[in-house]
């Protein structure tokens, strides 16, 4: 979409109506103006590229993620890597894992694949289910709404861990673990999204353009697709930026409880959970995954915040003097997000 200048004499339009929603081009334009957002996007992009290129980079270093190097660790001292900085050397750029001597650089790269995949997959699933349920509750009858509301209540009150542990036990042994994690985290964590979407939908539903569409003969599905979904983008993206890091942390917490990805597959969370005790004997082992995780979360948050502000019409519009009109009160229920298993 190209921006055209407002029709002449229409100095007034911005003031009178609800602020215009930015199209994708504007959004990117606004993001470009923020160096922090650019940097964050760059960091995330780099991470994704590194994760994708893991086999190439591993070949470059000449290591593989699962090869043991018994000679590189001191068996008498619990398997701590020989040498400084956790065994950093020309062969092992970031040192090796205590106990096994596996190459950390390559494991971190491969770990990024799993962690990012699980987090992104779970987030997508949470969003998909949450949006579907939220829309259905917001658009459906009063009965459907309260039914879905109670179902969400049940879901939110279910201790995630109980279900997780039970499900990991129930799932067939050959079932790919990352997929299982995606399914479990995704299917248990959509309560917040659905609440946000429902609240937004209830607000949006009252807007005249939705009524107009219905009058024009659009059915519920059509209304949902054409009139509501686009308007939900901003809150949903904002929410996704919160969910992604939370899901990475969830993956690591599950690993901590022994229900994460299956070995020998590396994942950041799983590395972090096995590294926690090594903080004194081999600080590098903790710092590397923790640092990466932190960087990712930071980048995601900065980017999420930037997208949120860029999508928020008020941020680009007037401050202070202008009148706020037709504002949708998301309300408390809209802001609710389910806490993780802390």
């Amino acid at each position, binding site marked *: 979409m190209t921006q*055209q200048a407002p029709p002449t004499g229409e100095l007034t339009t911005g003031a009178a109506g609800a602020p215009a929603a930015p199209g994708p081009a504007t959004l990117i334009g606004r993001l470009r103006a923020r160096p922090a957002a650019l940097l964050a996007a760059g960091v995330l992009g780099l991470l994704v590229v590194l994760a994708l290129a893991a086999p190439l980079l591993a070949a470059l270093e000449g290591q593989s993620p699962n090869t043991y190097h018994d000679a590189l660790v001191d068996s008498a001292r619990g398997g701590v890597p020989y040498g400084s900085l956790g065994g950093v050397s020309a062969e092992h750029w970031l040192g090796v894992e205590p106990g096994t001597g596996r190459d950390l650089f390559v494991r971190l790269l491969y770990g990024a694949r799993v962690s990012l995949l699980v987090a992104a997959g779970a987030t997508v699933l949470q969003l998909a289910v949450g949006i579907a349920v939220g829309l259905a509750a917001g658009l459906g009858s009063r009965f459907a709404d309260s039914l879905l509301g109670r179902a969400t209540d049940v879901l939110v009150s279910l201790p995630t861990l109980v279900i997780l542990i039970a499900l990991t036990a129930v799932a067939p042994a050959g079932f790919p673990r990352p997929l299982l994690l995606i399914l479990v985290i995704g299917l248990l964590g959509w309560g917040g999204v659905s609440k946000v979407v429902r609240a937004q939908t209830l607000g949006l539903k009252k807007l005249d353009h939705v009524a107009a569409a219905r009058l024009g*003969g659009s059915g519920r599905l059509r209304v949902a697709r054409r009139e509501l979904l686009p*308007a939900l983008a901003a809150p949903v993206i904002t929410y996704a930026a919160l969910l992604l890091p939370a899901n990475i942390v969830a993956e690591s917490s599950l690993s901590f409880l022994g229900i994460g990805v299956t070995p020998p597959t590396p994942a950041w969370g799983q590395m972090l959970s096995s590294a926690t005790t090594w903080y004194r004997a081999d600080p590098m082992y903790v710092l590397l995954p923790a640092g990466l995780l932190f960087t990712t979360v930071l980048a995601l948050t900065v980017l999420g915040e930037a997208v949120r502000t860029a999508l928020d019409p008020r941020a680009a519009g007037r401050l202070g003097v202008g009148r706020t009109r037709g504002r949708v009160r998301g309300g408390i229920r809209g802001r609710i997000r389910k806490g993780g298993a802390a």
Partner: protein
Amino acid sequence: MGADTDLRTGTDTGTRTDLVTVSDLTVDFPVGEGRFVRAVEALSLSLPDGGALGVVGESGSGKSTVAAALLGLHRDTGARVSGTVRVAGTDPLTAEGAELRRLRGGLAAMVFQDPLSALDPYYAVGDQIAEVYRVHHPDASRRAARARAVAVLDRVGIPDAARRSRARPHEFSGGMRQRTLIAMALACEPRLLVADEPTTALDVTVQAQILDLLHGLRAETGMGLLLVTHDLGVVAGSVDEVLVMKDGRAVERGPVAAVLGAPKEAYTAALLAAVPRVEAASAPVRTDGAVADGDEPPLLAVRALRKEFGRGRRATVAVDGVDLTLRAGEALGVVGESGSGKTTLGRMVTGLLTPTAGEIRHGGVPAHGLRRDVQMVFQDPASSLNPRRSIGESVADPLRAAGALTDAEIRVRVRGLLAQVGLDPEAYHRYPHEFSGGQRQRVGIARALAPEPRLLVCDEPVSALDVTTQAQIVELLGRLRRELGLALLFIAHDLAVVRQVSDRVAVMRRGAVVEQGPVDRVYGAPEHPYTRALLAAVPVLDPAGAAQRRAQRLESASA
């Protein structure tokens, strides 16, 4: 141009005689990506001590921006302000600390447009007034401040002020909230009252009360008044002088009687001409199909219609036993104060709402649910269009939903519709925010016409628009009636507009129709006292007439 000279003369006159002097005020707002929009350009004005100045102009002409500048409210917002402003000797653009605080509230107090959002929802109104009072009287005790708050609330006519001062804003009606805001202003005894659209959100009857109150206060305390409004009728009875603004510039200024009576500028004249007059007899639209044939079942017949919201003790009866008939091609106006059930009635007629009781017949057949032959034009042109879809798509939506036409046919039809409502057919791919309010309302009408309705329900289709645009839309609706033989259910609270559009009018109050009949009869010889009160409250453009009406109102109030 010697800016220096300008500046000096401005300052000189300002400090000596005038309460407010503004010279060469220019305000630019940032709109992102380093671009700015000019809201006010090289504006000068002055207001003598105790005087009253009205600032009028269409929406977006910069009125509020000027008002805010008087209190220095643009500071720290990113807006660029240049020129000089003096309010009672203080420069709101540079004053700091105690001086700025004294200016804000102490010298000049502001009354904002939307009385609900302008008050803190969490605190009792009395406490809010007391808080502001204590800012300006730091040695006043809490108790004294509360007493002062009760006193001013009482002064602005809040009944049982001591008790009501403990209420929160949402427990007040719109008029009471506006009174509260005025009371807040009074509490600090300012020398200047800046009122930015103090009555736009209110009904005519309440509007009249508030304007009367301001008038009375001014007479009593001798404070100056800067009244910002887009309604020329409002200024007529309330100020001495008026300044007309357009696109951030002053177009004309002078004594109110002169400007309204004999405008010098074409713009002012056009503005005045566009104002609908309630006194004018309507020139009913003659439509081809509109033959009032007694035997044929009416296009719309509504019997004992009732709508309740909520259940049990919380239930509100929004519409209560309404009977209406509307023949093909006829226009029925519905007027009434806010909350009287007009919108609810309209939505039930379209099928968007299901009645609690009663019956709706279309062409003699009982109707349920939505119908393609009944469409609606909404009040707010901004929210009635999806901001994320091009206007062409919005108009095409009903056609696509029907699924009868091919894509190419739909495009042709949409272009036709756009042309029909007076828009450029090439605007198909543009987005709502690229249009003015009036243009957007045209898009809304085009969309309503797409399914070829026989009845168009217009819910306040013009109240969000300024007078000039209002007139255009009213004109358009008339033309469409003529060309298409549409029947209109025209809902509005503005009695003058209704008179222009309708053949017959129904007056609603608290969900019921209190009076119904041909427009000229109802406006000319109202039978119900409520209709009479409504008509008496309508502002008139002539200052003398306004004064006369005010006297009448005071009389009837005291009686």
